[in-house]
């Protein structure tokens, strides 16, 4: 089953119609049944994952929702339930306080939780890196000793050697 056939089944003419067509299908029981009866073969056998692959590929390319995501959202809407980082029933007073702006993050915290920093591990790593730097600088100073160049360069080079050897 090709992409064109899948588009035909769901009635998708343009890519941007995909989320709307999927929602139409998910929320319309008769349409779901009709599609299932007509195209059940598409979900079985070797072709079983064709639809999933199609939508996942479309989603990755166009930053649109997969059927699972659409189903999750439609279930939230139907059941009117609060889901952390996804959905919340907002009282009218809160909408009013926000000037009736319907920007979703105003009402639902969608931010990723910040990673906790292990200071002990950071300190150990800092000590290791610092040790590595000292070792490398000493090696570098040794190599610079073997380099000979014009007088204007040698003065600066001596200072670098003294700096890196002296740490």
């Amino acid at each position: 089953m090709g992409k064109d056939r899948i588009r035909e089944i769901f009635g998708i003419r343009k890519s941007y119609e995909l989320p709307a067509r999927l929602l139409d299908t998910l929320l319309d029981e008769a349409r779901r049944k009709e599609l299932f009866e007509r195209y059940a073969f598409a979900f079985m056998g070797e072709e079983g994952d064709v639809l999933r692959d199609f939508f996942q590929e479309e989603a990755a390319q166009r930053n649109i929702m997969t059927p699972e995501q659409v189903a999750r959202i439609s279930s939230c809407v139907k059941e009117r339930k609060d889901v952390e980082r996804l959905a919340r029933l907002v009282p009218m007073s809160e909408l009013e306080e926000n000037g009736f702006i319907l920007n979703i993050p105003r009402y639902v915290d969608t931010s990723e939780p910040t990673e906790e920093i292990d200071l002990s591990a950071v300190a150990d790593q800092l000590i290791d890196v610092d040790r590595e730097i000292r070792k490398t600088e000493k090696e570098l100073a040794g190599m610079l000793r073997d380099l000979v160049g014009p007088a204007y360069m040698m003065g600066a080079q001596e200072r670098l050697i003294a700096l890196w050897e002296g740490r």
Partner: protein
Amino acid sequence: MKEGLYRLSSFCTWERPKKGKKYPEGSILLQCSATDGQTVLLREDSVVEDKYCVILPDRSMVEPGYLHILIDDALPSFLARYQTGLNFVPDNLRHLTIPRPPSLERQRQVVRMWEAIDRAIESEEDIIRQVKQVKAFYLDGMFC
């Protein structure tokens, strides 16, 4: 003042910069046009470009440097919630809450520590820049 979160307006006022007006050192500038939350702490009295909103701390309650740290910390999640499009509407700062600041002396200690950490970072970055210069020097000479 009890522990907990307080509205930003409890510790400062803010306004759009007035043309030609010099704002005092310690004012905090928040970029509002094409912003991703850039802030600047004024180190001397200055005229301010109109792409910023000027936050004027109430120094009887909060050290400007300390408030700057708090605002910087709170901005990413705050902007994710209240920014629409590229720009930020300064009036939305009324929704910003920050933890109750400690005593002014304690705030100064925190600011000194933050500044020392920033200096350490800048020094390390400067070392990297200079070592790259050394590498570039020897690389230039190698194939002459």
